[in-house]
């Protein structure tokens, strides 16, 4: 027997599909929706519909975008000789906030994880290699691929896989550095990060 009438149970089930939402949160969300005025709920539905209708993967870099190719790939001012590979679109946003990286991006939408059934074929990697050819890159040779996957075992495996894939093609492949967060006091850094930073120290 259902705990709630069918439409409510159905809504709770749908909320439970969302990442990080368990049964209790799903109930709370469902009852919140039930209490809102109809117009507000319509706006919510419209927002969901619009995002699915208008947002597509960029054909070039796999970014989520409402124009294809996306604003980075289409920009005339970006440095087309560099491509930074990231796991998720929000990783791109994090790098953009630096305002110092002017190159292009490539988004994998995940990282290698056999436990979760993600192998190389599940990553959006197939369209990366063609980008290295000048004829696909407005005549510009790609000089460097910066691999900015997460510093987890999954991110490292992904970086490693990409390096193996691209190095035979003669392009320079680099990995972002790991260590101390800037602006933080040494005392607040955990010992693992500190250990990495000590290992990767450099001359000044």
């Amino acid at each position, binding site marked *: 027997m259902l705990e709630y009438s069918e439409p409510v149970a159905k809504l709770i089930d749908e909320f439970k599909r969302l990442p990080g939402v368990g049964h209790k949160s799903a109930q709370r969300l469902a009852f919140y929706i039930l209490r809102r005025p109809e117009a507000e709920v319509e706006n919510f539905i419209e927002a969901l519909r619009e995002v699915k209708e208008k947002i597509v993967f960029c054909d070039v870099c796999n970014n989520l975008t409402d124009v294809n190719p996306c604003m980075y790939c289409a920009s005339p001012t970006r440095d087309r000789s560099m491509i930074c590979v990231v796991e998720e679109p929000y990783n791109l946003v994090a790098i953009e906030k630096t305002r110092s990286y002017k190159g292009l991006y490539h988004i994998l939408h995940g990282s290698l994880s056999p436990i979760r059934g993600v192998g190389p074929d599940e990553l959006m990697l197939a369209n990366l290699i063609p980008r290295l050819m000048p004829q696909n890159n407005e005549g510009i040779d790609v000089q460097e691929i910066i691999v900015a996957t997460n510093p987890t075992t999954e991110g*490292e495996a992904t970086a*490693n*896989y990409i390096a193996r894939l691209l190095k035979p093609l003669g392009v320079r492949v680099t990995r972002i550095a790991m260590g101390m967060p800037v602006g933080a006091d040494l005392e607040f850094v955990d010992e693992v990060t500190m250990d990495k930073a000590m290992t990767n120290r450099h001359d000044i």
Partner: protein
Amino acid sequence: MLLESLDAQNFRNLEGKLYCGKNLNIIFGENGQGKTNWLEAIYLLATTKSFKTVRLQEAIRFGEELAIVRGSIQQSAEIRRNMQVALQGNTKTLAINNKKETIHRYLGELHTIVFNSDELEIVRGGAEARRKFLDGGIVSIYPPFVQTLADYNRVIRQKNSLLQSAQENGFSVEKTAELLEPWNEQLIALAARIYKARIRYVERLQEVLEKKLFGKEEVSIRYVSTLEGKGDLSDYAALLEERLKLRVQAELASGHSLIGTHRDDLDILFDGHDLRKYGSSGQQRSALLIIQLATLSVYHLQNHEYPLFLLDDIDAELDYRRIGQLLEFLSGKTQTFITTSKESFVERFGAGAEIFTIENGAVKTL
């Protein structure tokens, strides 16, 4: 570090307060009175865990909501700290000097080494207990090693999962080898770090091992890599890489990671014999003690202080001659807590010790 006093509220059946001695503390009482519960409370104060249960709420007295264990620690001549662990349902709150602390900051204030029947797994159980023993010792003197171990275990899990799906999907050896490469590369780097750390730690243990503490039988230890006899171990990473390449087919067939530091072991020999197969129960206890004493000494060399040594029911299978030798070794070094139900034990070793008589969990003052 020194545990000066300890008291508890609603923690199991404990009542009263222990004013601990600097050297030997004997917790005396009949069986079932709660002697071990006092050791458990010390262990909880140090590690925020129990050696009896993983479900800490079991330790809250029946019918009560909140259990508290409190201790006063002398860290140096000038510095005293009050440590507190509070248990309420599933949650545990830690405090130092009445201020809430994260587990990260809390741990490291008080270190303990426990001798009890569970720890005997090290000398008579499977290899996993011995790897855990070595890794725990390494972490106590080099905390970042925790991450190396966690990463290694994660890589092994990922690799096992990959091998299983390769098996189910009928992948060729070549295809499997290719898919394994990114994981094996990390496995090699991490395993080499673990191997090096464990070899070095075993060397340090050997340097301080009181081989003949208990008389003529000699205890020796040796780290055993699964790669032994397969090539040059001095370049572990290169050898492991070579072995991993050769064994892809076997790993694919078994669906598991077959080589790496997760298969290594520590040989513990008693007069040259394998202790697990040939050792008597008393010999196993003696050997475990000798190894734990070495752990204490290595810890001391690194940190210039000794952890607390908690010994549960030591007299069950160890004769008084050996206990005498043990206590003599510990004297002036560790702050030691021993439980016993034998009056003769107290008579024999009680001189100079602090003695607590436990009845129904309560400390009976004499």
